[in-house]
């Protein structure tokens, strides 16, 4: 039997009395794009943080390529090939944008791929080029707009050349035009190939997003969380027509 790419089993995390993530199970295939949706406070961000080891779960297991990653340090998980972005962007504000990305390029995972990627500056530049903010490479990160910070987050995650990319609200705060651009970047990344010195093998992705219209166009499958539990799972059409999902989003009788 083939080893599943990502296997989450009985993952649980409580903050005090609140069960933020409650007994969540799901699986992912290689190169699959999964949308993770749910009302506010459903535990989406917490779930992503559990996957990257920023938070430690109370119980449950996460196997990435057959390897248990619960209990591993965040940087080890990232070097295994799981990269994430932050919902509330966390750039290094007083550093130039290129230096923000260079930190990712200096991670062991990014450095091990041959001698020629060790020109860290050039590779960071290619990551910025991919995200579409290379013209601002020397500006301080504190001068960026919300949309550009989102792109910086994506550039930083992509620079580690992940196999599994966790995007936390990549369209949050973006204008419609910027959203289209970002969606295009994500699709381009998923197709794989070379972006200068940056190499993409078409990572699997989990995308947390509230802009459902945009999200539906990208994803293969959607997982719905509500109050920390798995509410529904399926293709975009199935999920949109699922009465329980409509109820969770709009309240009782919202579907009629």
């Amino acid at each position: 039997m083939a080893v599943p790419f990502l296997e989450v089993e009985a993952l649980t995390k409580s903050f005090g009395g609140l069960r933020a993530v409650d007994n969540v199970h799901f699986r992912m295939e290689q190169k699959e794009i999964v949308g993770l949706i749910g009302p506010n406070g459903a535990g989406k961000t917490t779930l992503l943080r559990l996957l990257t080891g920023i938070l430690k779960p109370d119980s449950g297991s996460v196997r990435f390529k057959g390897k248990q990653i619960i209990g591993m340090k965040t940087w080890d998980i990232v070097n295994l090939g799981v990269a994430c972005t932050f919902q509330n962007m966390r750039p290094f504000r007083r550093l130039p944008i290129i230096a923000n990305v260079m930190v990712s390029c200096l991670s062991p995972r990014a450095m091990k791929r041959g001698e020629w990627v060790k020109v860290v500056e050039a590779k960071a530049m290619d990551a910025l080029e991919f995200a579409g903010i290379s013209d601002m490479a020397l500006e301080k990160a504190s001068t960026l707009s919300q949309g550009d910070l989102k792109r910086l987050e994506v550039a930083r995650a992509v620079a580690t050349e992940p196999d599994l990319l966790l995007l936390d609200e990549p369209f949050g705060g973006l204008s419609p035009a910027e959203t289209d651009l970002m969606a295009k970047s994500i699709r381009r990344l998923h197709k794989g190939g070379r972006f200068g010195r940056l190499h993409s093998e078409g990572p699997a992705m989990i995308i947390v997003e509230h802009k459902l219209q945009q999200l539906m166009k990208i994803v293969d499958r959607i997982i719905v969380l509500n109050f920390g539990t798995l509410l529904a799972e399926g293709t975009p059409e199935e999920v949109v027509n699922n009465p329980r999902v409509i109820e969770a989003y709009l309240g009782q009788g919202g579907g009629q």
Partner: protein
Amino acid sequence: MVNAGFYLKRFYTIVRGEVLVLPSRIIVALFFIILLGLPLVSQNPYLIRVVILTSIFAILAASWDLLSGFTGQMNFGHALFFGVGAYTSALLNIHLQISPWGGVPLGAVAAVLAGLIVGIPCLRLKGTYLALTTMAFPIILMGIVFALPDLTGGELGISGLRRLSNSLLGNYYIHVVAMLTLCTIMWKITDSHTGIIFHAIREDELAVRASGINTTRYKLLAFCLSGLFAGLSGGLYAHYMRIAGPSTLEVSMSFSVVIWAVFGGLATIYGPVAAVFILFPLLEFVRFWPEYRALIFAVIVLIILLYMPEGLIHWVRDKIEKECPRCKIRNVATRNTCRICTAALD
């Protein structure tokens, strides 16, 4: 002769293109030249002594900046590394008759170990808690020093150490060249990729971890590097003053370092060095007015920090240089267009 002329011309071209274009670089070059040429002008023992002590403390202040200015790990107990370096090389010199040339590096190694001992328990601490915890370590060591008077000399310290050199000029050049070399090395470290990671850890440690960088390793590295340079300066101090006493571990020593670094400008390396070279001689020269010394010191520091919150060096640098808005290359403030990309400077 033809060859010499050729190289001289080439040297001049490089100097003109790389050094003379920016006032800050001219200042650094002048600083090197003045320090190395000072004995040609004056061999006043008092002046030489002040410059040597200033150099030693410049290394110390820069090493604090390497740890706290860059990685943001506020260390309020930097005297620990200084004291460990001083006591180790002093003990080796007195009890084992090891020459200062071996003792000072061994003292630095001991300070690196001290860096590890402080760094490991402090890995999980941040901000104020880290500052308070680090402050405790030199006090603990001072307790140990007082508890073992046979070994450490107690309050009197270990005196009668050998100097690195017996001549005035020898001592001067050893300390000044050591300072210039060590500070250049520190500056190079912070200018490298490692320096970028240090900066990033100060800005947002969680984001650095999520970029796949082992922050524990880099924080310990910062503690060890800082300990290394502070330990070297401690060893140099002990052998120059010919005494390693508990004053090297005092809380006031830790805080002087912090004040110097903040005064000069954090996360620059050259800022703290410049600050020590301004403040330390100033303190020495108002010695004839001893009761107001601390007051004058406090007033100067307060005024500077009030009007130049980023530190003296940043303020001066912004006055004499402008950054090109397009290519971020620095230019003399008198220029109207950028020297590289010819964009208009506002």
